[in-house]
């Protein structure tokens, strides 16, 4: 078997395989992109799954088309800058939180989803942080008062199944966030804390996750840092609603 043959074989094989893979990518990529879009939108809607379920629209029973339709008709997407000003010409769903997190804080952009549904408005904010092994991220929905939590959804890149991964898998744990307040009585921002050993302050704390203290602390930090960066926007929105009420 000559060296020439080996080179020829390797060359022909590489060309063939490259063509095959490129072809499959071209055919399958658009479908995969659509699936990814629906997947991301479901995660955002999951943050308001409690009010959705209360209105008889269980998220798991919504079809893909219904999810897209809700996003089309009932969701106002805005992107805000670090000082809370809306950025023109961008859809919130296009914001890549992982990339934003690498930018200096003043240049970051934040997605806001205002979901109008059942006569109420919910504001969904995206947050991103670090768990025990890798990145964690999530969406947190606030009610129209910009204070009461309507629900959360979390996901992770590589937390331990059964322990850290419970932030995503444990529906009962996530349900605890519903009704918590992110501001205290004096109007100071306190966020929601996952406390090891169980919540003490029922207004602003949820139970930690046993066996997953580092991940739960990661969630606490993520919520604090994440929501804090939305504060300028929340203040603006609040002044807007108050002035509207005064008029």
């Amino acid at each position, binding site marked *: 078997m000559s060296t020439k043959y*080996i080179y020829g074989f*390797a060359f022909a094989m590489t060309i063939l395989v490259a063509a095959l893979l490129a072809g*499959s990518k071209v055919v*399958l990529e658009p479908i995969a992109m659509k*699936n990814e879009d629906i*997947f991301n939108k479901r995660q955002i809607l999951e943050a308001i799954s409690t009010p959705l379920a209360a209105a008889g629209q269980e998220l798991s029973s919504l079809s893909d088309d219904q999810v897209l339709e809700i996003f089309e008709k009932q969701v106002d997407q805005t992107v805000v800058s670090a000082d809370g000003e809306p950025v023109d010409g961008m859809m919130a769903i296009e914001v890549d939180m992982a990339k934003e997190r690498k930018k200096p804080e003043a240049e970051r952009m934040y997605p806001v989803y205002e979901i109008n549904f059942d006569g109420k408005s919910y504001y969904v904010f995206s947050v991103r942080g670090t768990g025990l092994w890798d990145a964690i991220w999530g969406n947190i929905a606030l009610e129209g008062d910009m204070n009461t939590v309507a629900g959360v959804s979390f996901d992770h890149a590589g937390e331990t*199944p*059964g*322990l850290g991964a419970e932030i995503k898998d444990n529906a009962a744990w996530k349900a605890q966030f519903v009704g918590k307040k992110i501001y205290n009585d004096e109007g100071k921002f306190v966020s929601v804390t996952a406390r090891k050993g169980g919540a003490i302050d029922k207004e602003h704390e949820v139970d930690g996750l046993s066996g997953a203290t580092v991940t739960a602390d990661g969630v606490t930090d993520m919520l604090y840092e994440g929501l804090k960066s939305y504060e300028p926007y929340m203040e603006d929105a609040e002044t807007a609603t108050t002035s509207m009420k005064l008029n």
Partner: protein
Amino acid sequence: MATTTETKIVEKEPWFSKKERVLMTDPLLDNNPITIQVLGVCSALAVTSLVYPSVVMSIAVVFVCAFANLFTSLLRNMIPKAVRLIVQLVIIATLVTLVNEALKAINYPIYKQLSVYIGLIITNCIVMGRLEAFAMANKPWRSFLDGIGNGAGYGLILIVVGFFRELFGKGTLLAGSPVPMFIIGSGDDYWIDTTTPGQWGNTFFGWYANNNLMVMSVAAMFIIAVLIWWQRSRNPKLVDIS
């Protein structure tokens, strides 16, 4: 490439002879890649916390194993000996990439859940082991059957492990699939609802919580070990094979 150790069969065999059936059934039990050859254990620990991802992973491995065997066998007389391992790897990697792309398009949530483990089929020793040990020296049809058999042998263990881990870990079966079943747990969605007073006596009120020992990867180690022990105690001939 006349050096291949191909067995010349003088008599014409029927299409699906007993010998060929053995190629498929042998890896399921007496020559199982996981419990007898102890290959592919890493992914067996990682993806088996639920049945549904185990099933998807099994299908992916059966597909890759069968077609990698088939293509390698078709090319076996053309592949230069000096680069045969690389060629085998290219065949496997191509198939795995195809599976990965297809899964992304067919079922995105399960693609997210299996994450890197589909890609890691490339490094699954079972696939390459079969190419080297079987497909390089046998005819395409037999290699194809051998691939299906070994993939299925791996899949069988995955699904058995997944069954016990999910049932005792989370109290569900096939969660996340189109036909999820809720077997035992605390809540009225479950067939055996441990929060209903009277059914288990008030003492055991709401006693079934997630069993983290089963949810975590170590459980797969225990279950595979029990399977290995059970299989060898039933058939002592297997004890010294591996």
